[in-house]
């Protein structure tokens, strides 16, 4: 079971993991707003939402950036999915998911897929400089579809 958490999604709104029950959830831990690779990764996910939604999946991004930083980044890139701020205490949620790099004080580039009941079904760690793309996520979601049949 994925550990529950509550984080800010906007400056005045928090989201909790259990609110996603009934939907699959992709959690994308990433090192930082504004850095080029993360920008590409989030931009790519933004364009891919249709394919994720088709598989009953929602997406959230998590980094240790603050909620105002996320707001600004999200507006600049016109993101249509929430970025959650694992800001205070710094990296606490990322640590629960083994996605925190203590040396850098940033999240590692880690993906999780949770099923409709909140059980972790897939995860993937990428080298920090590599955008993992969407192919692995789509394959994992489709494997989940097939295992249900």
């Amino acid at each position, binding site marked *: 079971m994925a550990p529950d958490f509550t984080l800010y999604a906007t400056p005045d709104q928090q989201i909790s993991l259990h609110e996603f029950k009934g939907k699959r959830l992709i959690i994308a831990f990433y090192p930082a707003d504004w850095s080029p690779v993360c920008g*590409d*990764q989030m*931009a*790519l996910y*933004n*364009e*891919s939402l249709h*394919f994720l939604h088709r598989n009953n999946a929602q997406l959230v991004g998590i980094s240790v950036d603050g909620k105002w930083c996320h707001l600004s980044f999200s507006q600049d*890139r*016109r*993101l*249509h999915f929430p970025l959650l701020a694992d800001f205070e205490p710094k990296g606490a949620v990322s640590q629960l998911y083994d996605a925190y790099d203590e040396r850098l004080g940033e999240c590692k580039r880690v993906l999780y897929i949770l099923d409709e009941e909140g059980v972790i079904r897939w995860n993937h760690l990428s080298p920090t400089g590599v*955008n*993992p*793309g*969407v*192919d692995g996520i*789509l394959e994992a979601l489709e494997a989940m579809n097939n295992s249900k049949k």
Partner: protein
Amino acid sequence: MTLKPPVSTLDHCFGNPEAAIELVEYGDFQCPYCGRAFPIVKRIQEIFGNDLKFIFRNFPLSKIHPEAKSAAVATEAAGLQGQYWEMHHLIFENQRRLFKNALMEYAGRLNLHTGQFEADLHNPGLIEKVESDFESGLRSGVNATPTFFINGEKYTGAWEGPDLENFLQQELAKSKNI
């Protein structure tokens, strides 16, 4: 990572269809990096001549490049009138002017039937073609533009500088040794 699906007759192919080297680019007409790659690819096509076929698949990042998708549809619309590559070239040469009137101007320059071209900018079949290119890119592991596939395998080296050309030379040498 492999190209999914492989190149087929649904793709636009430039050059010798039987060439030993198949170079596929996933690109976005509004992406400045793709704009920079355009003359590099053109040069590679000149160097390799009959040994290379080039395929372009659309990977428009529409949220950050709002004119990329309509530009992609415009190339497909020109393709229906037999001028796909001519429009592809014109658009990359004029990457900063991709709004509707500019696309119409390019159609005029290519002597396309502009009424038909304008209607085809909203042709659902062409829009679907662009979207299915995008989905094939996602499934093939495209994570940025431009991304190249050489003989079906993702090319992970640099495309600026001599690396891409050198890699293709090696592939060509391999194909001749078999």
